[in-house]
């Protein structure tokens, strides 16, 4: 089993003018997904992220206030899940609730230190 990071990309709910009823429906879907993964023991970690943020860049360590990308490219949160391979991770990501809002999931395999060490061993 490998760890995969699922990054949730899309506009903030705030900007969509969802009604309380729609928000509850949305949350129901998140609950269902989360519960399913927990029951299968495949979720390791995960959090939602605040919209704003800070960025520090360059040798002068210049600090700017976020958001730094177009609103539809904001990273709203992430999960770290366990899967055999990318196919397995893609399968898990099928239940992501917000595809209908135009949101996307970016999947990245977590590089494990142990393996990278083996790679450079000679």
């Amino acid at each position, binding site marked *: 089993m490998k760890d995969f990071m699922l990054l949730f990309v899309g506009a*903030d*709910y*705030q900007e969509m*003018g*969802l*009604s*309380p*009823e*729609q*928000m*509850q429906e*949305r*949350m*129901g879907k*998140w*609950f269902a*997904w*989360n519960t399913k993964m927990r029951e299968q023991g495949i979720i390791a970690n*995960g*959090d*939602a992220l605040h919209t704003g943020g800070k960025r520090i860049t360059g040798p002068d360590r210049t600090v700017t206030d976020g958001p730094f990308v177009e609103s539809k490219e904001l990273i*709203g*949160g992430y999960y770290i899940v366990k899967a055999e391979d990318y196919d397995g991770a893609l399968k898990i990501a099928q239940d992501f609730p917000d595809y209908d809002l135009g949101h996307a999931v970016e999947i990245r395999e977590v590089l494990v230190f142990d393996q990278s060490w083996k790679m450079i061993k000679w």
Partner: protein
Amino acid sequence: MVDHLFRHQFGKMVSMLTRMYGLTHLETIEDAVQDTFIKAIKLWPTSMPDNPEGWLMTASKNRIIDLLRSVHSESKRKENYSQAPFAKDISDVFLETEIEDNQLRMIFTACHPSLHPKEQISFALKTISGFSTAEIASALLTKEESIKKRLQRARQSIKVNDFAFEIPQGPELPTRLDRVLEVLYVIFNEGFQSNKKNILIRKDLCGEALRLCKLILKKESIRNPKVYALFALFCFHSSRLDSKINLDQEIISIRLQDRSKWHMPLVFLGNDAMNKAVENEASFSSYHFEAAIASEHLRATSFEQTNWSIILEWYTKLYALQPNDTTLLNMVIVNIQLKEMNEALRLLDSIEVEKLASRQYLYHATKAEYFCKVQNIPQAIIQIDIALETVQNQSERNFLLKKKSSYK
């Protein structure tokens, strides 16, 4: 999670927070509650709080303080809102009776006489019932843009006229309460009568009217026989909601409705309310008579068993109290059922068709029914064609088309 938890929680929270921070901050309060729900969607799936309602309340209170602070720091004013004199103690606001009182205060605010009737309904659905502007637009078959404007105007009037966030008392109460009941009646009818909408929205509107009416009934100091009668009427009508429309969203006439599908618990609930409503005959309102008519229909085990003479009596009393052409039309239909054809024609002729405006098709459809019953089929077809020309609603059109084909 409980059905409509967020929607109902929205109304509760907005009214409680309005009690704490005042009607002038209503817009900020609504934004804060909205933000809090979004926070809940993000946090709850991974860590559910032990007391979700308490969490929502605390989080939205903090959010309001944030929002108000940021507004005021922009204008270079510093004030600690959590200690501001108008910020009522949160523990007081949490008492169950206080929660209900605050929702009642909001209902009376929504139905304030300074607001236009259309604004009252939109505002009530938004602020008390937690519908979004898109949902209100779809429920009232209006453009979302006009709903937004109505809400803006309502909020503006509330600010300009400096409404008190209170339940009216003394001599002012009865007229203010009458207006509240009228608004609930309209909200209910939007759900019950118009067949253009999908069944979910229809049920939500009826459900909201029922819930708010019940809230008024729980308050001993303001309830009166009219409120009981209106509640009974809502219960009686609601019990038929599922059997009124088939799976294809077509209207089923009461003659053909599956009476075993009528929801009996609601009928009994309505009956209890009706018993309380009729304790004093002097105070009978139009709601009393409408509820009595609805209950007569429910009492009949089949369409043929319907006691049309009693129904006619109720309609006559309703007409005496509140003359209008819709009631006259209903009396025509009842007279046709009673085979009192001369009386049916006399009533038909007394109706001024132009005054019926968008409901003129009902007049012509009824007249068609009359001609059909007196075996004048050519005239019946002429009348139903006029009705078909003016009817707007698709499922009502289909209903008329079916009727027409039965005439041949």
